[in-house]
């Protein structure tokens, strides 16, 4: 299962690689990283249908996570990737907007990795 993580904080990569050490080693999960909305779009363009799950931060300079979400949900249909949004602003408005745009799940920072792991495992059957 290939997962694309989108966050403007580069250290997210090291963190995910260590947190999902076992899963990566057992090839249960493969992580790719994009450090902005633009990079994520480019990645999706080059590796269409590869990533089945996208984990995106909402608050990023440039194209925001919500804009990226809208773009993904419009452009990629068969099969649509699962998109989970992560944000430091866990307010109702953000949540509603994300849901409206078709987000499959909504997580708030700081990320509970145990919970995330469970969600990732159940998201893709």
């Amino acid at each position, binding site marked *: 299962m290939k997962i694309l993580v989108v966050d403007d904080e580069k*250290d997210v990569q090291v*963190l995910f690689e260590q947190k999902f050490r076992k899963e990566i080693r057992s090839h249960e999960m493969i992580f790719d990283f994009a450090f902005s909305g633009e990079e994520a779009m480019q990645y999706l363009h080059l590796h269409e249908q590869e990533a089945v799950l996208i984990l995106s931060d909402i608050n990023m300079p440039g194209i925001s996570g919500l804009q990226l979400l809208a773009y993904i949900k419009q452009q990629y249909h068969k099969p649509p990737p699962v998109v989970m949004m992560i944000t430091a602003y866990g307010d109702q*408005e953000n949540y509603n907007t994300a849901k409206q745009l078709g987000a499959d799940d909504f997580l708030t920072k*700081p990320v509970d990795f145990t919970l995330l792991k469970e969600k990732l495992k159940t998201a893709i059957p």
Partner: protein
Amino acid sequence: MNGTFIILIVVCAYLRKALNTKNRQPEWDRILLAALYVSILGLALQVLASSIRPFLDWAAHAMLLGFIYLAFKHPVFQPVRTVAVALLPLELKYLADEITKKISPGFYSEWKNYFEAAGLFAVVWLVAMLIINNRQRKALAKQQAIAEEKEKEFKKAEEMKAVLAVQVAERTAELQGQKQALETALDELKATQSQLIQSEKMASLGELTAGIAHEIQNPLNFVNNFSEVSHELLTEMVEEIEKGNKEEVKSIARDLQQNLEKINHHGKRADAIVKGMLQHSRSSTGIKEPTDINALADEYLRLAYHGLRAKDKSFNASMQTDFDPQASNIPVIPQDMGRVILNLITNAFYAVAEKKKQQPAGYEPIVKLGTKRQEGTLVIRVQDNGNGIPRRVIDKIFQPFFTTKPAGEGTGLGLSMSYDIVTKGHGGELQVETQEGEGTTFTIQIPIQTP
């Protein structure tokens, strides 16, 4: 008939009047009055009792001579000495007549014509002297009148001076009171101004709070996450040591090392943000320090963005930075320059947010922040594509208390303080270019003083 008594009457009357003896010399007045009555009596006797006429003649002349003597000797008669001078030849002629008649009547009758001529001369002299005296008296009186007039004027002036002095004293007291009131008002204004500066600072800090919280939360999350994952790694490491898997242990150790570096890095990040916040709220040192303008600008850009983002959840703007690496070591007053940059960025975000509210579709809010070091000048440029500043208010934007924001949202001090900091504090310039509907660019230019 001899005129000596008439002369005496006239002289006595004249002396009393001229010397004003009635008021000034009461004793002499009595004497002169007595002499006047005696003369009148003498005149009457001369007419009635012709037998004692020679004696009366002598008496009259004796009185007249007495007066002439007094006129020359006594200080009281000094002012009327001319009268005595006028009478003197007449009396001398009389004395000469009498003496010559007694000693040598023959000589007298022989030289009678000459004696008579002398008598005529004495009369002419008398008349001339009286005329002169009269004139002198008139001139004197005139001068006296002038002197009196002057004296009066002087007194009047003195009185006016006194009145003026009182008025001046009153006015001075009044002005002194007004001066004191103004000084008190000025002191109050100064106190209010420093309070306003402080509250402006606090207001901008308030706007930043959410941004600061967000900016601190991110590194703190990393610190927590990396320490947690390190804990997991250590457990794994112990397992691998027991298995004797040396390579894996080494790999985990490298990861742990890296994680500790990350923890340290993010800890420092949070530390820097807190320090920056403290620096912002602290009063300015007024001392220029070598400052990394890019780091300062970037920090405030993020803080301002997240501050606005926290208030308006739907807000999003593209931030484009163009930092000149040469702008890393510039002597500025960091707290002050930070406030200027923050203020300009906050304004830019406000401008694009306002425009976004008016035309949400198809509008891409962009805030550009750039630094440039060129030929001894530091240039900081803050550009937005908001609504621009209307022409009618462009001249007022640097005035204190001028704000276009709704009541309670802006202090109206941001740009005026920024202007003061750039121009007075750093000897630079703060310029604005704007086009209505297109956007605004603020440009800070500061001369770089190389120590």
